[in-house]
C-alpha cells in the first residue's frame, strides 16, 4: 500500500508538473497549501501547510514538523544524489539554522555579521544575486555566549525577516536586497543578544531575546510586519502584567496556578534578573490561533540563592498571537539546578491518543523526556525518556511534577556524579522532524552525562571563586549521540542510528520520499530510510554540520536538498581555533566531551545543495 501511494503521488506530480511551474498560482501551491498529506497514517492530521516546494519559514511550516511531502528523492533513488551547487559565506563559525527558498531564490543568513545573501536558482551554479550587510554592533560578539550563530529567517509580504546578533530585527526586500525597516528589540549593553529565527503570523512577527552574564530578563517580542514597530512584549518573569497573564489564562496544573507566580516563586527581586531567555523555536497552530514556545533556565543566580520554583523559567507557553495574552503555561523543570533550558521545538499535530483524537504538542526536552501535551490545555499526556537519564525518574501526569532524584541535585560543596543528561541536555535546540507517514518523531539526541567533580579555583572580573568543575562524557552504552526515531503513539524508541564519538547536533528533515536527512558533527550528511533507519546515502561535507536540512523544488521541477556545513555553536566551539582542548572544563565543560573534535573536523562556511 505504501509503495502504491508513492507511485500515485509521483504520477500526480508528473502530470501536474508543466502546469505547476508555469504560473504564479502554481508557485503558491508549491508553497504548501495542502493539509492532506499523501500516505499519512490514519488519523494523523497536520495543522499547518507543509513545505511542498518552497521553504518560507524556519521549520518549513508553522507546526514545526520539518516535513515535506516532496518525494522525487526517495528510498529508491537517493543513492544517486550529488552536489548541484555549493556556496560559501567566508565566515568560519557555527552555521546553525537553515536557508529559505522563495520564488526561485535561496536566502541565507550568515553567522555574525549576519549578512543576508540571495542566490538565483534559475541559473547554473546558483550564483549570488545580491548581499545585504546589516553591519551590526561588534560588541555583540563579546556578549554572545555560544559562538556567533544565527538560526535563520522567515519570509512574508515580500520581505525576509531575521535578527542580527546585536538585538535588531531587520526586514529586507526579498527582490532588491534593500533594508525596509529595522527595529531594536534588546540591548547589547545589557548583555542581550538575538540568535533565534523569528516567525511571522499574518501581520505579526515574533522573536525572543537570548540571555547573558549580565542577568537578562528573557522575553518574547511581537512586532508589526509592515512598520516593524513593537506591539507587545511578554516577559518570562515578573508580575502577571509583565508575563501577560490575565483572566483568560488557565494553567492545567495547580502547581502553575495562582496570580503573580512570576514573582512569588522567587526570593524578592531576583525575578528581575530571572532569565527565562527565549532563544529557541516558535510554533503556531492556525486552527486554535495559538503560538507556542519555551523559555530558558533561571538566569545567573546559583540555585541555592533562588529557592522557589522560579517561574517562568523552563516553561512551555501557549499565547494568543494578537494580544500576547497567555492561554496556558506548563513549567517543565521547577527550580532548575542543571541548566536545562526548555526552549526546544514544539511540534504540533492531531492524532489519536489512547483511542481519542487529541490536539497534541510534542516537545523532545533538554531533560531527556519526550513530552506529549494536549496543546489546548497544557495537560501532559505522556513523558517518556528518549535517552538513559537519571536526574528524574518520571513525571507525575496528575501533578505535572518531575520525580527528581535528590542525589542528582548539586549544591555547592556537595557535588553529584554521573548526572544524566549533562547541562548540554539529551537534546539541545537543534530541531527534530515528524513524518506523518511513519508517525515518528526523529530526534537528534545526545547521550552525555556529567560529573561535578568538586571545585576548581577560577577567576572572573578580578574575583576568585570556586567553580564547579564539570566533566562531561558519554553515558551508558558508550555512544555520544544518536538519531532517535520515536514512535509517538507507542511512546517509545523504534530505532536509532548511533554516533560513537560525537553528539548529533544537526536538525532533521523528514520527507514524503520516506527519507530522513540529518548531519553529524564531523561532517557526514546522511539520508536514512524513515521506516527502518537504514542509512541509504551519505556524503562527507567539508565541516561539521550544526544546521538543519531543507528541501525544495527548482524551476526545473527537480527536488533539491540543502544543508549548511560549518561547525561551531556551543558544543561545536571545541572545533574552533581559539578553544584549547587541553582544558576539559573549557567552554562550560563541553570541551572534555568533545576533545577529539579538532581531529575530526575544522571550521567551515558552506551551503551544500544536492540533487540528481
Amino acid at each position, binding site marked *: 500500500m505504501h509503495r502504491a501511494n508513492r507511485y500515485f503521488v509521483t504520477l500526480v506530480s508528473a502530470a501536474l508538473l508543466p502546469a505547476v511551474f508555469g504560473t504564479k498560482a502554481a508557485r503558491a501551491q508549491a508553497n504548501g497549501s495542502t493539509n492532506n498529506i499523501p500516505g499519512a497514517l490514519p488519523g494523523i492530521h497536520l495543522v499547518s501547510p507543509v513545505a511542498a516546494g518552497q521553504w518560507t519559514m524556519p521549520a518549513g511550516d508553522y507546526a514545526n514538523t520539518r516535513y515535506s511531502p516532496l518525494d522525487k528523492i526517495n528510498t529508491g533513488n537517493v543513492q544517486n544524489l550529488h552536489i548541484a551547487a555549493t556556496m560559501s559565506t567566508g565566515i568560519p563559525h557555527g552555521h546553525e539554522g537553515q536557508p529559505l527558498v522563495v520564488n526561485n531564490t535561496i536566502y541565507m543568513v550568515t553567522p555574525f555579521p549576519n549578512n543576508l545573501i540571495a542566490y538565483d536558482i534559475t541559473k547554473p551554479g546558483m550564483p549570488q544575486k545580491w548581499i545585504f550587510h546589516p553591519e551590526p554592533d561588534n560588541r555583540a560578539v563579546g556578549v554572545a555566549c555560544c559562538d556567533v550563530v544565527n538560526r535563520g529567517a522567515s519570509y512574508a509580504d515580500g520581505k525576509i525577516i531575521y535578527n542580527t546578533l546585536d538585538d535588531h530585527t531587520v526586514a529586507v526586500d526579498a527582490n532588491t536586497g534593500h533594508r525596509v525597516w529595522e527595529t531594536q528589540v534588546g540591548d547589547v549593553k545589557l548583555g542581550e543578544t538575538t540568535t533565534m529565527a523569528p516567525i511571522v503570523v499574518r501581520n505579526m512577527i515574533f522573536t525572543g531575546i537570548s540571555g547573558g552574564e549580565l542577568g537578562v530578563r528573557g522575553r518574547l517580542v511581537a512586532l508589526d510586519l509592515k512598520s516593524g514597530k513593537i506591539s507587545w512584549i511578554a516577559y518570562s518573569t515578573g508580575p502577571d502584567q509583565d508575563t501577560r497573564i490575565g483572566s483568560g489564562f488557565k494553567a492545567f496544573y495547580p502547581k502553575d496556578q495562582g496570580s503573580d507566580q512570576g514573582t512569588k516563586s522567587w526570593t524578592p527581586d531576583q525575578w528581575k534578573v530571572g532569565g527565562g531567555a527565549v532563544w529557541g523555536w516558535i510554533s503556531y497552530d492556525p486552527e486554535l490561533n495559538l503560538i507556542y514556545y519555551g523559555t530558558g533556565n533561571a538566569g545567573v543566580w546559583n540555585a541555592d540563592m533562588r529557592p522557589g520554583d522560579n517561574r517562568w523559567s523552563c516553561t512551555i507557553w501557549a499565547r494568543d498571537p494578537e494580544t500576547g495574552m497567555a492561554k496556558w503555561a506548563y513549567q517543565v523543570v521547577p527550580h532548575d539546578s542543571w541548566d536545562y533550558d526548555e526552549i526546544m521545538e514544539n511540534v504540533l499535530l492531531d492524532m489519536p491518543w489512547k483511542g481519542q483524537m487529541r490536539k497534541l504538542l510534542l516537545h523532545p526536552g533538554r531533560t531527556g523526556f519526550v513530552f506529549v501535551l494536549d496543546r489546548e490545555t497544557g495537560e501532559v499526556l505522556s513523558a517518556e525518556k528518549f535517552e538513559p537519564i537519571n536526574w528524574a525518574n518520571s513525571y507525575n501526569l496528575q501533578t505535572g511534577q518531575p520525580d527528581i532524584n535528590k542525589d542528582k541535585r548539586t549544591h555547592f560543596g556537595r557535588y553529584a556524579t554521573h548526572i544524566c543528561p549533562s547541562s548540554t541536555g539529551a537534546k539541545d535546540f537543534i530541531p527534530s522532524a515528524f513524518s506523518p507517514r511513519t508517525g515518528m518523531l526523529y530526534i537528534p539526541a545526545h547521550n552525555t552525562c556529567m560529573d561535578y567533580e568538586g571545585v576548581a579555583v577560577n577567576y572572573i572580573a578580578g574575583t576568585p*571563586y570556586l567553580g564547579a568543575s564539570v566533566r562531561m562524557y558519554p553515558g551508558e552504552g558508550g555512544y555520544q549521540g544518536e538519531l532517535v526515531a520515536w514512535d509517538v503513539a507507542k511512546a517509545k524508541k523504534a530505532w536509532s542510528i548511533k554516533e560513537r564519538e560525537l553528539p548529533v547536533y544537526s536538525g532533521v528533515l523528514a520527507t514524503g520520499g520516506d527519507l530522513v536527512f540529518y548531519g553529524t558533527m564531523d561532517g557526514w550528511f546522511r539520508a536514512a530510510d524513515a521506516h527502518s533507519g537504514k542509512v541509504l546515502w551519505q556524503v562527507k561535507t567539508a565541516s561539521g554540520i550544526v544546521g538543519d536540512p531543507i528541501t525544495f523544488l527548482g524551476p526545473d521541477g527537480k527536488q533539491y536538498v540543502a544543508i549548511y556545513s560549518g561547525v561551531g555553536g556551543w558544543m561545536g566551539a571545541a572545533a574552533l581555533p581559539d578553544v584549547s582542548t587541553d582544558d576539559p572544563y573549557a567552554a562550560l565543560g563541553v570541551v572534555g566531551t568533545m576533545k577529539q573534535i579538532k581531529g575530526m573536523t575544522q571550521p567551515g562556511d558552506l551551503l551544500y545543495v544536492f540533487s540528481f
Partner: protein
Amino acid sequence: MYSASKRLTVFCLCLGSLACNAAPVLRVCADPNNLPYSDLQEKGFENRLATMIAGDLGMQVVYTWFPQRGSFFRKTLDAGKCDVVMGVPSGMRGIDTTAPYYRSGYVFVSRRDRNLNIASLDDPRLHQLRIGIHNLGDTDREAPPVHALTSRGIVSNLVGYNIFGSNLDETDPSSDLIKAVEKGEVDLALVWGPIAGYFARSSPVPLVVLPIEGDSSDPTLPLSFDIAAGVRKEDDMLKQQLDVELQRRRTEIQQLLVSYGIPQLSLPQARTAGY
C-alpha cells in the same frame, strides 16, 4: 633580553630601512575596565606591575584587551593572542601560575557610622541585615563566603550586584556594590578584598573593611586566595622570567599594592618555583 619562549612575538617596525629596530614585547591579556586591576588608561596596579617587569626585561608591554567574563581565558591566553595574565589565583585550572605575589581574602564592608564590626559568618545579625554581594554572572559561579551564608539559611536578605555591572558602558562596574554600602542600599557588603580596599578608600563616606573569619561550619572553605601571574602551560621560560622578577621586585610590589589599598594576608613562607 629576548625570551626564548616560542610564543613571544617580535615586532619589526621596518619602514623601508634594512636594519630593523625590533623591541621585544610582553603581551599582556587584560580587562579594559576592571580597576583596581587594569583599565584602558593603564591606571590599574596590574598595568603598573606589567610595566615594571617589562622595563626590567627590556620589553614593551602590548595589551590584548578583553573583558574578563566567561570566555576571557579561552579567547585571549588560550588563543595565543597574548602570553600573560597579571593576576590569577594560584593553581587556577588550565593555566600555569608563578609563585604568588600577594594573598588577599573576602571582606565585609560597612559604613563606619553604623558601628557594625561584623567579621564572623556566625554573627546572628547577618540574618537580619541587607547584605550586598557580587553576582558573578552564572549559576555555577558563587563566591565561597556566599555559600557559607546560604548554607546558614541567609538567602532572602541577600541583594545581588552583577559584577559586570548593569550596563556594559559603566566604568568600574564592580564598584556598584561599594557605592551601595555608601548610599545605605545595603547594610553590609561581602566583597573580594582588592575590589573592596581600592573603592572603599575613595568613598566620600568612611567605610570599614574587615577580613571575614573562617567558616566555622566548614573550615576547609577557602575565603582567601593567593594571587600569581598566569601563563599557558607550555610557557615555562616566560614563567621563570616572571618568577625571578616577582621575587626581585617584591618590595616595590608590596608598596604598589599598599598604595592601591589592597588588603593583604601573609603569604606562606615557602616560595619555590612551581608552587
